[in-house]
């Protein structure tokens, strides 16, 4: 960035544009040229001059302007190249064609926006009666079904989730050591028997929360690794635990991380 020529905090009123196309239309106007016959080199230089001025004033230059500036440089260089030979007297395509079309379309839409602005101003002065409360039991605000859009649907869903989270604050975190894998390991050793199937999923669901369930699950994996339990999945999807016949020792428990 070049050093500012102005004292810090100094404010200069620079015309505000609604984007690079708006700036280009302005340059076309002040140069009194036709959109269909733009002097690319001049306009390109003035466009860059404007950006340089913005930079000097420490204004943020939106990426769109920089992109457009690069398009203009490209176009300027193209204009310097000799045009390809014409076929049977047909005029060669003007490299400016695309820019011309974009500017014409943008100017049309800007005219439409101006008309909307005038109507907007006029219609702000039109008053209707406020909606009267409808007799009957229905409560609260209502939306015409035909007018409900995805935006409303998403908004409603977000509302539900936000309210749910507010009404269901997360439980106090239980200090992790309470749910040690080793404690779960010992609990299973006490509860399992070789003859009676033990429903693992039901047991996990009975745990106080995620942390305990995870500790319990890790304990089961340890038990299986040490060949102290056998896992069996039924066709219905249940997971059954059986105690194997292998005896456990103190060393087995101490092998499990606390």
């Amino acid at each position, binding site marked *: 960035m070049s050093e500012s020529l102005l004292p810090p905090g100094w404010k200069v009123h620079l015309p505000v544009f609604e984007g690079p196309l708006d700036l280009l239309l302005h340059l076309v106007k002040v140069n009194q040229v036709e959109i269909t016959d733009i002097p690319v080199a001049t306009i390109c230089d003035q466009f860059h001059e404007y950006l340089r001025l913005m930079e000097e004033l420490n204004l943020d230059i939106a990426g769109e302007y920089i992109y457009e500036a690069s398009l203009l440089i490209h176009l300027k260089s193209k204009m310097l190249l000799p045009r390809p030979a014409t076929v049977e007297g047909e005029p060669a395509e003007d490299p400016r064609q695309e820019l011309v079309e974009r500017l014409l379309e943008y100017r049309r839409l800007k005219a439409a926006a101006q008309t909307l602005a005038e109507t907007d101003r006029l219609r702000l002065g039109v*008053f*209707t*009666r*406020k909606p*009267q409360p*409808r*007799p*009957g039991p*229905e*409560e*609260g*605000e*209502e*939306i*015409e*079904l*035909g007018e*409900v*859009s*995805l*935006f*409303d*649907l*998403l908004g*409603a*869903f*977000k*509302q*539900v*989730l936000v309210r*749910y989270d507010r*009404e269901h604050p997360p439980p106090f975190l239980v200090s992790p050591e309470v749910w040690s894998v080793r404690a779960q390991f010992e609990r299973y050793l006490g509860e399992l028997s070789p003859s009676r199937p033990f429903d693992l999923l039901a047991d996990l669901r009975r745990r106080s929360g995620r942390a305990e369930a995870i500790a319990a699950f890790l304990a089961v994996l340890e038990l299986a690794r040490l060949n102290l339990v056998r896992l069996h999945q039924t066709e219905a999807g249940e997971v059954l635990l059986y105690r194997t016949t292998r005896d456990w020792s103190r060393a087995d428990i101490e092998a499990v991380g606390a």
Partner: protein
Amino acid sequence: MTGRPELEAALEAVLFVAADPVPRQRLLDLFDEGDREEAAQALEAVLARYAPAEGRGVAAEEVAGGVRLVTRPELAPYLRRFFEAAGESKLSVAALETLAIVAYRQPITAPEIQELRSVNPAAVLKTLLERRMVRITGRKEVVGKPFLYGTTREFLMHFGLNHVRDLPPLEELEEALRDG
């Protein structure tokens, strides 16, 4: 000086928009000092225009220190019918939220919806079924075998979607509308 027609028009417009009775003086205060005498006459002319009459649905009435325009009581049955019909094409906030839950969490049961909204969804589900936004897709294989609810073809058409999986995730819209 403001012309008499403009005074009358302004008074009629204000009375039309105001739902509550307006004190006469407040109406006259709308105008410049010099116009008030004329405005008082204009107000009487407007009120006379709204005297109860055959073929007229709206009348002026004097209440609690003010004047207002109201519909004539004999026409209440028509108004009731109108509001009933209008209500049929409207969705309450509760219905919209329930529809959103069904759309995003389908298939889902009434108890599961209740879990999310803390309100018994029975009445709202009935409305949504009647509006053909929601349908019963089956029963959940749990105790009590509750109905499962999902969205309909009409729902997809209404929102311009081909498939339920085209419903935007919460983050997608936020991202699409985030600048830069």
